[in-house]
């Protein structure tokens, strides 16, 4: 698709794009990676602490503590989004705050807040998953594909 488009460019357009490229500010990729690494890691540390909290203070095992931990993390992300902090963390941390579960929470909640002005049904209800919907779709789909491969390997591969 991208190559196809490149081919249609006129020589004038190609020339300009090369000129423009020289002036274009580059994304600080390495810096972004470092920020994403430690902020994302920090989120996971908090998540881990919450999981231990549920295991030690409530009747959860390592297997069952996952759900309340996820719920708590999303709740924290919701509060941070509502107070207008999460988008600032996002600008700083990039993938570090977008990839963990809290990023999913932020995507849902920011859309819900944004479309509150259009009412609860068509606004909040209709738009809440406009960013997160593709995460759910492709998450479920890739789980299906991976599970299918696993079953096929067990059935036929004799693992």
């Amino acid at each position: 698709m991208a190559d196809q488009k490149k081919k249609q460019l006129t020589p004038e357009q190609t020339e300009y794009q090369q000129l423009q490229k020289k002036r274009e500010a580059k994304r600080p990729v390495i810096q972004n990676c470092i920020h994403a690494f430690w902020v994302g890691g920090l989120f996971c540390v908090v998540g881990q602490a919450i999981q231990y909290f549920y295991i030690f203070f409530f009747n959860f095992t390592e297997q069952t503590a996952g759900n309340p931990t996820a719920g708590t993390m999303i709740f924290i992300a919701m509060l941070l989004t509502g107070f207008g902090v999460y988008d600032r963390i996002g600008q700083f941390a990039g993938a570090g705050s977008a990839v963990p579960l809290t990023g999913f929470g932020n995507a849902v909640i920011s859309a819900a807040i944004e479309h509150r002005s259009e009412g609860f049904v068509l606004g909040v209800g209709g738009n809440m998953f406009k960013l997160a919907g593709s995460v759910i779709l492709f998450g479920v789909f890739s789980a299906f594909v991976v599970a299918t491969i696993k079953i096929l390997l067990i059935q036929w591969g004799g693992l």
Partner: protein
Amino acid sequence: MQAGHRTWVFDQQPVIVSTGTVGGPFEAQGPLANDFDMLHEDLWLGEDSYEKAHRLLFEQACQKALEKGQRQKEQVQFVLGGDLINQITPTSLATRTLGAPYLGLFSACATSMEGLALGAMIINAGGADYVIAGASSHNAAVEKQFRYPTEYGGQKPPTSQWTITGAGAALLGKEGSGPRVTSATIGRVIDMGLTDPFNMGGAMAPAAVDTIEAHLKERGVDPSYYDLIVTGDLGRIGHSVSMDLFKKNGTAIEESQYKDCGIMIYDESQPVYSGGSGPGCSAAVAYGHLLNRMKKGELKRMLVVATGALLSPLTFQQGESIPCIAHAVSIEAESE
């Protein structure tokens, strides 16, 4: 009247009787805060949605212009304005309050100068005594329209720009004292095949260069005729790219006389990435800061070139490149 292919030279020289500019909280922290007629400390402007706040921005800019010009809204024959929101509703709703005949415009961020050019044209042709031309933008409403929800934690690249919260309106009259609109050049749609919606400056620079060069050629003036040639919202990247293009084409524009409203409106320390943008950016800076400088006598002649990227969220998702436009209007101080 018509000079060349797409330039109008106004023999009646319509007067900018007065202007009104309104800004938001982020603009209030910028270096041009003193040049705004009205600044809001809250992005909501006391309304319950950003779109309503957006409407209010334009309404207040028009009211301020009328108030400063000591004219009644009944005297205004036409309002020409636009914004970036779907079907330009904020401007339309604001004009409902004003009650004047209305022509809604859309040239994205170039709407401000499209309005001024057409308004001057109407007055020059004897079609009206008073016309209001203006444009506005609201950061959160535009983010919602074009990008992600405002609280979504997406990372913006350094090429992106910050849509300003602000509005500018100019009351144009047939007679009176004040800066005069002397000519206008209408832009063509220029598309250099760029597809990154987070790099508008780079996409719009060729449109600005095309319009400026056409203007100079058709009006038959040298760049040094103008004390200032100012683009609307090219930002830092677009500004330096357009300078490169001028050098390449051999247009003798000096670095010192070539500025950009999007760079001027914010401080270096404000996190606006490449600079400000939006229809309100060129409108508020030109009608506020720059006209104030002209009134002080610091500027005699200036060319305001508002630049616009005519994309929609739909077109860039469908893989279309970004079509861009620039409209130029020259404003000159009254000769004694």
